Every structure is written in C-alpha cells, then in structure tokens.
C-alpha cells in the first residue's frame, strides 16, 4: 500500500518545490521560502508529508530565507537612504556588529527586528520617523 495524506487520505502525493511558499518558523508567523526545497505534498489538499530526516534541512532553508531577506532589506535601505550600516543599526536599536551578523546569516534576528527592518526597507518615511533622537550636549 502506498503512503497516504494524513489529512485527507489521498494517495496522490507528489514531490513539489516549496519555493515562494509561506511557513511559520519560531516567532515568525510567515517566512517566504526563497530557496528551492522539495517536499512531498498532497495533490488534493496541499498537506505536506514530511519525513523526520527532512526537518533539519527544512529549518536550514527557512533560516537561509530569512537571512536572504535581511540582506535584501539592508541593501535597499543603504541604497535609498545613502546611509551607513551603523545608521540603520541605530534606527533598529541594535549594534552595528549585530546587524552585520544578521546580514551575513550568522544570527537570525527576532521577528520584531526583522519586521522593523522590513518596514524601513519599504518606506522612506518610516526611516525618517524612526531616526534616533540626537542627545544634546
């Protein structure tokens, strides 16, 4: 007997690329998969059938997707605002070193930081309004 979908019972299971699909991961409600990743999917209900040995790679691909987006957001802001990474870090309330680490994929930021970065990348006005206050002497 062939494997079935545990959700609908269908035997129409196919290996499909999950790239561009959205998954929740840790505190991220939705991560867009930016990399190729093949998983078994039910052709009838779209349920995923995942083998235990695929789980770690699934995590890795999701982390890579987050890193890719962080890098893209930072580059968009640097280009549009003609600013430095240190300035972006100050807008986000994080250190420049930490920004470098998340940009290079060495660390995964909390969703809050990621989301703020995304907002800064999307709107010039967000960047203007989030400028840290300059302390007077």
């Amino acid at each position: 007997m062939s494997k079935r979908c545990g959700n609908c019972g269908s035997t129409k299971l196919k290996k499909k690329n999950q790239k561009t699909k959205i998954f929740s991961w840790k505190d991220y409600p939705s991560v867009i998969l930016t990399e190729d990743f093949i998983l078994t999917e039910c052709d009838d209900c779209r349920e995923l059938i995942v083998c235990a040995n695929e789980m770690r790679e699934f995590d890795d691909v999701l982390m890579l997707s987050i890193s890719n987006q962080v890098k893209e957001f930072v580059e968009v802001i640097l280009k549009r605002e003609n600013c430095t990474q240190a300035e972006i870090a100050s807008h986000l309330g994080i250190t420049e070193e930490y920004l470098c680490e998340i940009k290079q994929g060495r660390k995964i930021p909390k969703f809050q930081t990621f989301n703020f970065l995304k907002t800064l990348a999307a709107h010039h006005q967000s960047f203007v309004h989030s400028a840290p206050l300059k302390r007077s002497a």
Partner: protein
Amino acid sequence: MKSKFELSDVFKIIDSKDETKIYFSAFSRSVMPVMEVFQIENKAITQEQAKEYILEGIRTLTPEHFVRTVILFNDSTYLADEYGCYFDNKPWYIKFRIDEEGNLEEVSFHPPLRDIVTSAGIVIEARRFL
C-alpha cells in the same frame, strides 16, 4: 481494549534513530500545532525541535494512555491508534500507525479539541485556544 500497534514496536522505531523510518503524514496536524503551542507560550521553537518534542512525547506513552483504534479514510485496512496524555504539563491528542513497511506514520499530535477519556479512565482535558 488493546491497541492495534504495540507501543514497544513504536518505541523501537523511535529509539533506532533511523529518521527515514518516521514521517509526519499531516504536517498541519502535528508539527505546526506543536510550534503554535510553544509560540503562544513565548517559547518559539524550530521544526526540528517540534519533531524531537513529538517523538519524546510519544516515547512517554503507556497502555493507560490508549484511547481506541480507528479506521482512517473509510478504509478498513488503514488503522491507527489514538492516545491522550499530559506531556510537559500540556494535554495532547496523539494518533499514529505503523505502516506496511514498518515505518512510523505520525498522523496527529496536537492539543485535544474535546476532552479525551483514555481506556484506563484518565481524562485529558481539551485545550481550546488554538
């Protein structure tokens, strides 16, 4: 009432550490709900951690946690065992089977949608926040 699949056989598969022999046939009914429960508790976990948690949870089952054997998808040859338990101080509804090739098919692992009474009379209360 006796379960269709022996827990000792299920434990053997888990303990073998051969991950090719374990699969989650409905990701949205097992791995995802576990991640959601942890997210609600502000302890977000990865999919690998959810998988480990599920297998650890199954490993704690005893015959007292057995609820019943059910026919899936109106196919009398496709049977699975249902269990209810408290694991990690959380209530869980668990359903699995061993397929014809000796693989562990984990069908469900999520908070119970309604109260469960196991064959030994243990009541597992529903958790309705999901």
